[in-house]
């Protein structure tokens, strides 16, 4: 997030898109709901499903799946057409505006309605409301990123924020809601194929030299590595021989699971380090048991870039060990000594090689976390990014064209499928499914379908249905629901027994490498 969570209550207009906030980020959703109910903020929700947040919305736009660039361009078209843009901000802080203006010309409300299905008067009303915000906050999640155009979608939201001057001030911002406790930290720490900690590029020779000196090694690779979504095909083709998978369950979370399973089974050596015997661990050659969050010391970075302490409350069961200890043991056994007394010592090393973390210490975050960048010991942290200037200096507008999703409905597969989470389960369920109460509230997978589509396909609420895509088929219970929009069904991806990701399309965004989980074509029939 460019802005802290508490800032949401300072916004007077909030735009939520691609985020089922009250189910996936419940505590954060309360900030939005309070802003609307008690501080007079106006909420715009753009989502095909009738999610809970729509009840708090002034405007609810219901686009067709995979049409995000179109409606965002449409909003900007209206804003320019009515001269509601933030001229001073554009002039002082941005570049590339003319190219954007040209690109937006054809995105008239009528043209956009043809693509998105959003009535033009609704688009115009939402554009006027957002452009009129003193502080407009944009919140988005995987409904924006899990598309082949995910990067374009994010850039389009950034365009909208810049066009209306909604960056760098309290209550504004382009705010991705991170879905995992430390996905921000995993990125910050260089758990990515192209960067070291603090987003220092692996291809920058000066950075490589710095890391070689810090680590006392030579020959650090300077070629960008493989993303997870590229590793699996390489494993499938036999180019990748071994994988060391720590705390991940791609056998449920990956797109096109049948392919993922074949790929992993093709490895010469699969090592899985986890707290449970996950679907992925089951096919491993060696499984290493690790301690969970309540059994260890360390830090997580949350979605607002706040680095916070994790503390040990209980001893781990059996012989479970801290993940860092296990990895260090492997390093030492392979001839490179990695020895640390504790997590604090590791964190101190992180600070020495990572400018944005350099000023953060365990002592400083003892009672409350700090937002990076925090370059020095006396720096207060940076709750709001881009206050004076953008990372690259001026903010770049990207003139973006809408492209349709990779897979379209047709006669054989006449319905769109979109996937997501439910309130009571979490990701692949390895943690939440250990709590009986959560299973009682959300016991099994289901396919959420509109009344009309259910009637067309001869499905009754509560009956079992077979849902098939070009890649696989699963069975799930039918849930006829007003949440569903006609033409689209929704299946939560938590449940390995009816894994939605057996159906999803592994087509990737060319930049981010994120699969298009949010759109694929399926057919649905009464289960035999």
């Amino acid at each position, binding site marked *: 997030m460019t802005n*802290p969570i508490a800032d949401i209550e300072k916004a007077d207009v909030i735009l939520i898109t691609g985020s089922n906030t009250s189910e996936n*980020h419940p*505590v954060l959703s309360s900030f939005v709901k*309070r802003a609307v109910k008690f501080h007079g903020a106006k909420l715009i929700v753009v989502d095909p499903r009738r999610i809970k947040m729509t009840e708090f919305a002034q405007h609810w736009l219901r686009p067709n799946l995979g049409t995000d660039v179109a409606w965002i361009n449409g909003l900007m078209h209206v804003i320019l057409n009515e001269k509601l843009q933030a001229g001073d901000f554009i002039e002082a802080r941005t570049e590339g505006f003319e190219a954007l203006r040209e690109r937006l010309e054809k995105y008239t409300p009528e043209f956009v309605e043809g693509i998105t299905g959003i009535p033009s008067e609704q688009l115009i009303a939402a554009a006027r409301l957002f452009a009129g915000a003193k502080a407009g906050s944009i919140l988005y999640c995987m409904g924006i990123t899990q598309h082949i155009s995910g990067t374009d979608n994010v850039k389009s939201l950034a365009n909208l924020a810049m066009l209306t001057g909604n960056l760098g001030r309290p209550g504004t911002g382009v705010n991705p809601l991170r879905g*995992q*406790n*430390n*996905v*921000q930290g995993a990125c910050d*720490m260089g*758990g*990515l*194929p192209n960067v*070291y900690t603090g987003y220092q590029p692996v291809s920058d020779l000066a950075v490589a030299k710095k890391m070689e000196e810090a680590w006392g090694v030579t*020959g*650090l*690779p300077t070629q960008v590595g*493989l993303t*997870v979504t590229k*590793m699996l095909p390489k494993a499938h083709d036999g180019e990748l*021989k*071994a994988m*060391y998978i*720590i705390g991940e369950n791609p056998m449920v*979370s*990956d797109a096109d699971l049948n392919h993922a399973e074949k790929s992993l089974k093709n490895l*010469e*050596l699969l*090592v899985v380090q986890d707290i*449970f015997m996950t679907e992925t661990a089951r096919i491993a050659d*060696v499984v290493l*048991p690790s301690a*969970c*969050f309540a059994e*260890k010391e360390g830090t997580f970075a*949350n*979605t607002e870039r706040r*680095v*916070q302490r*994790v503390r*040990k*409350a*209980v001893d781990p069961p*059996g*012989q479970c*060990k801290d*993940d860092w200890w296990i990895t260090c043991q*492997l390093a030492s056994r*392979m001839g490179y000594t*990695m020895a640390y007394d504790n*997590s604090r010592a*590791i*964190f101190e090393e992180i600070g020495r090689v990572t400018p944005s973390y350099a000023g953060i210490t365990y002592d400083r975050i003892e009672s409350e976390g700090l937002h990076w960048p925090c370059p020095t010991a006396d720096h207060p942290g940076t709750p709001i990014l881009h206050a004076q200037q953008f990372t690259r200096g001026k903010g770049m507008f990207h003139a973006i064209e809408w492209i349709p999703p990779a897979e379209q409905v047709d006669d054989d597969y006449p319905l769109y499928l979109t996937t997501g989470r439910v*309130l009571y389960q979490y990701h692949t369920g390895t*943690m939440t499914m250990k*709590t009986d*109460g*959560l299973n009682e*509230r959300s016991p099994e997978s289901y396919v959420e379908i509109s009344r009309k589509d259910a009637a067309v396909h001869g499905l009754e609420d509560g009956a079992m249905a077979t849902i098939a895509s070009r890649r696989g088929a699963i069975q799930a219970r039918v849930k006829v629901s007003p949440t569903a929009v006609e033409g689209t069904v929704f299946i939560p991806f938590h449940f390995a027994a009816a894994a939605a990701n057996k159906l999803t399309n592994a087509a990737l965004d060319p930049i981010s490498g994120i*699969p298009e989980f949010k759109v694929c074509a399926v057919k649905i029939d009464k289960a035999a």
Partner: protein
Amino acid sequence: MNAQQTILINGREMTFEGGETILEVARRNQIDIPTLCHLKGATPTGACRICVVEVEGARTLLAACATPATAGMKVQTESPAVVEARRLILQLMLSSGNHNCAVRGSDNQEWTAFQLKVQSEDASDQLCPVWGDCRLQDLAYRYQVSGERFDATPTQYPMETVNPFIVRDFSRCIQCGRCVQACNEVQVNNAISFGYRGPHAKIIAAGDRPLKDSDCVFCGECVQACPVGALVEKDARYEVRPWQTEKVRTTCSYCGVGCQLDLHVQDNRVVKVDGADVAPNRGSLCVKGRFGYHFIGSPERLTTPLIKENGEFREASWDEALDRVADGLKKIRDNQGGDAIGVLTSARMTNEENYIAQKFARAVLKTNNVDHCARL
């Protein structure tokens, strides 16, 4: 607003800012006015009246939480009239439900009868499930009040236990309304409200249906807000006592909001979770963060390294398992190059562990093939 305005509380002169209540000014100056219904961040209701104070010139005692400070106001927070009023309020509350914390006097037969009634309704032979963690009990001791002055009222509404997370014990409810505010003003889930009237008042969900059949999402904000034993975590009720647990502050391991938690630990087990009143969550949690902790001590946890032989896992020592992995990776790195190996680090692990994992990939395996599930 004139920042120089002053108010006199217990004879001490204090400055205040426009809009501040007597309670806020007093608390800022370390004067302890007791409250029950007051919930930080929510609209003051003055419902319980335990915070009454004496204001010179006022015809009645005033609720400090709902009365704005005004210039020149003279306030007494523990005058005989105030203490008498608080004692009466506490006596009424104690007589209105199953407050069997032994505050109630024990010098007549009534005590035994009362305990037996509560124990039978509770199906427990212990004292109140929130003994030692109850604001009403605290105040009863502070003001030396027992519950005998008025006859005990019969239990009007049965306990609700039909959901997996929260026990609603209406017999211990003091109608302070903190839960209603927590639900409607803090989490804004709008699931519960005041129902019925006068002596029949009850906190209800969805037209007086069980929570599980209402808009309740089991965030538990109401449980954390409840000052008495009316709302208690089902798993912790009669199982977890504050003097037997240790609290450890940490960060939630579910979504990316990073809520701060207090894990209650008893015999090396996490037995209860509270939201910590600091940024970013200010005490709030969701159902997963508050109730989804059983995986920590689950018997299904892996406990030993495992090596697969002939398609079956067998237990192995750390030395054997680590050597097996190190040898395997080394062979592939040395023969095919580090780029024949991929490392998936984890958005579930700490920063420190992610740092170590990518350092291992780069410095030891000599590959940048390191990624995690941000994309999934």
